[in-house]
């Protein structure tokens, strides 16, 4: 097979429909960028869930010297108080399981989150010691909807500083991530639909512009693959440029926003990494190529029928 012909025809086709090609590239580029960002937000939501622990958990925070709660009269929770708490945790019907997080573990997590570039902040953070942390129990419930019982049973006990239901804190953040993700994906779906239709239109135009050549090729017995290859290449080139643009855009967001702002300054959660961006972009590339090749194959079959 003479690939020279295929390449020159591909080039001619792209030049002949420059405006169509640009429209196609831009649509693919923007839709894939949105898909990429949607996937990143999805990865971020998953990361947040993993990082903050299961949404079903509540944490029972024990007193330390600094606790101001009326149930922390004796300062640190003493062993007798702690035994009473464990007893409740072991016997309460709504508790599925629980684990103990020591001050040391809490301090480790704290150090991971509170990192700063600011010298003054660093000084303040350095003054914090393990003893400023609180021991706690992470409680997993049998039915996450039924948490009030455990909460009321524990929150009144001596030695319990407070009972945190993590969902109260995390739900709004996770909901926001999810809303943003779905927003991006819905817009991307519409744009992808537009891209698919544009591919069909571009093929129709190109097939019309080349109808004489195609007629002769069919007549002299050129194979279907040979006839449709220039069309496939044309849309493939558009798809590759679109994917490359999307990769640059997502990479830009990662570099300037996630690595430039979020990661160094905001440590409330573990942010998405280059690895997540790579996974998202691989999916975007596969989607971009499928979303252009499939309509191309369908349309060329229709217009170039033997």
């Amino acid at each position, binding site marked *: *097979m*003479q690939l020279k*012909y295929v390449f020159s025809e591909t080039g001619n086709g792209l030049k002949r429909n420059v405006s169509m090609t640009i429209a196609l590239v831009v649509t693919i580029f923007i839709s894939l960028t949105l898909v990429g960002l949607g996937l990143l937000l999805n990865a971020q939501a998953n990361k947040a869930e993993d990082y903050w622990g299961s949404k079903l958990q509540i944490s029972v925070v024990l007193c330390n010297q600094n606790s101001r709660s009326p149930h922390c009269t004796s300062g640190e929770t003493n062993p007798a108080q702690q035994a009473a708490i464990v007893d409740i945790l072991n016997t309460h019907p709504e508790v599925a399981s629980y684990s103990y997080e020591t001050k040391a573990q809490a301090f480790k997590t704290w150090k991971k989150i509170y990192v700063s570039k600011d010298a003054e902040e660093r000084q303040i953070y350095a003054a914090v010691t393990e003893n400023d942390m609180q021991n706690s129990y992470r409680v997993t419930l049998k039915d996450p909807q039924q948490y009030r019982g455990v909460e009321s049973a524990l929150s009144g006990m001596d030695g319990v500083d407070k009972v945190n239901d993590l969902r109260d804190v995390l739900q709004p953040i996770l909901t926001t991530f999810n809303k943003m993700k779905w927003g991006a994906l819905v817009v991307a779906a519409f744009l992808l639909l537009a891209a698919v239709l544009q591919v069909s239109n571009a093929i129709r135009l190109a097939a019309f512009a080349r109808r*004489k*050549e195609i*007629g*002769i*090729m*069919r*007549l*002299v*017995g*050129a*194979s*279907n693959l*040979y*006839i449709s290859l220039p069309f496939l290449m044309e849309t493939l080139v558009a798809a590759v440029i679109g994917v490359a643009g999307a990769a640059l855009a997502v990479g830009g967001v990662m570099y300037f926003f996630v690595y430039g702002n979020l990661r160094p300054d905001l440590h409330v959660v573990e942010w998405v990494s280059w690895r997540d961006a790579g996974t998202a972009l691989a999916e975007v590339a596969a989607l971009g190529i499928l979303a252009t090749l499939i309509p191309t194959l369908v349309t060329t079959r229709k217009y170039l029928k*033997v």
Partner: protein
Amino acid sequence: MIRFENVSTTYPGQNRAALGNVNVDIEKGEFVFLVGASGSGKSTFLRLVLREARPNHGRVYVAGKEINRMASWKVPALRRKIGTVFQDFRLLPNKTVAENVAFALQVIGKPKSHINLVVPETLELVGLEGKGDRMPDEISGGEQQRVAIARAFVNRPQILIADEPTGNLDPETSVGIMKLLDRINRTGTTVLMATHDAGIVDQMRKRVIELSDGTVVRDQSRGVYGFQH
């Protein structure tokens, strides 16, 4: 080489059959005129040979194969055995004479060395030596049809189909084209030519198949155009 067995076909949405129970057998190396009024089924006949259409009933054999049941991916191989020439030449206006002929070989993947060899040869055969670099609009109608014939013949097909090849040409030029088709026929190529040109048919004295309303009303060796029963 071409055989129709009880072939009937109707175009969608039409009551009248385009071809009705046609039986024709054309041997290898024959020169056959297909005559008949417009709408008599000549074009349908040629389309069936090229497998651009399929019959509703009956069987079409071309070059030893039953083509109406052939898988569509095998159709290109069939068409490489058939050269086709049209009334309107169908040359590519942005390619030179030689490029137009070479195009037919390029798109079926023939190597460049082969193309460089056979294209000048074929141009010489059709009487266009030295005109390979001209553009189609720089040469006469008769010469354009010679280019089209060269393109159809360059891959040495077993069958040459000509659909009114002289329809756009004056009588004198037409004679030249007919001589060329005759020469191609003498190389062993089966020639099937649809025409309205009574003068040519009378002069050539070849086999004549006449279609009327989709049926064969005459199949006569060494026939003339205007034969009446």
